[in-house]
């Protein structure tokens, strides 16, 4: 594990402090605020209208492709970070491969961009 001087314990203290203060904020209105239930108040808000139809409807997935691309690029960037780390040290043999990795990933990027340009609406 880490040594103490890196401050991992203080990180934990910070996280606990943030959590507890957030909880405190959440608890306050439970104690002080009024709680009056009514049917209209608890209705889903749709800009004044009563919501028609089912609430959890399914939406179209126009930009889903970008999410998949994001996953692939995320992995790639993690390799690039290792490469960037050893960038400044001279004469690394495998200098080229991550750059080639990026080159390989450009065609899917163009493909996806073209594809979603065809759908210019949300």
């Amino acid at each position, binding site marked *: 594990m880490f040594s103490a001087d890196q401050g991992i314990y203080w990180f934990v203290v910070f996280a606990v402090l943030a959590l507890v203060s957030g909880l405190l904020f959440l608890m306050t209105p439970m104690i002080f605020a009024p709680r009056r239930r009514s049917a209209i108040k608890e209705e889903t808000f749709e800009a004044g209208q009563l919501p028609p139809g089912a609430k959890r409807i399914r939406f179209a*997935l126009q930009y*889903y492709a970008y999410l*998949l691309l994001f*996953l*692939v690029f*995320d*992995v790639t960037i*993690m*390799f690039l970070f290792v490469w960037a780390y050893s960038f400044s040290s001279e004469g690394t043999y495998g200098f080229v491969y991550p750059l080639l990795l990026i080159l390989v990933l450009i065609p899917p990027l163009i493909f996806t961009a073209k594809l979603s340009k065809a759908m210019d609406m949300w």
Partner: protein
Amino acid sequence: MNELQFFIAASALFFAIGVYGLLSKKSAVRILFSIEIIINAASLNIAAFARFTPYNLGDAQSVTIFIIALAAAEAAAGLALIIESFRLRGKVDVDEMDELKG
């Protein structure tokens, strides 16, 4: 029981949980979950061996990183398949994907 054994036992436990899911679940999403759990168990196994044997840490870490990357690609393709299947048929039950059966 030393530390190496503890971590391998932990990874075996996760592997077993994943096997349980593979055998017992019918929803394709849950099966994807089980596959992810199994892959993660494998990577924990390799990481434990890397840490508790006096060899080069770099190689084992590289292998684990490759495992994670492959699993990510697998998850992307798998989810695309699941969503596509859902679009076509409205359900993701693997037992009911039997259109090819004669």
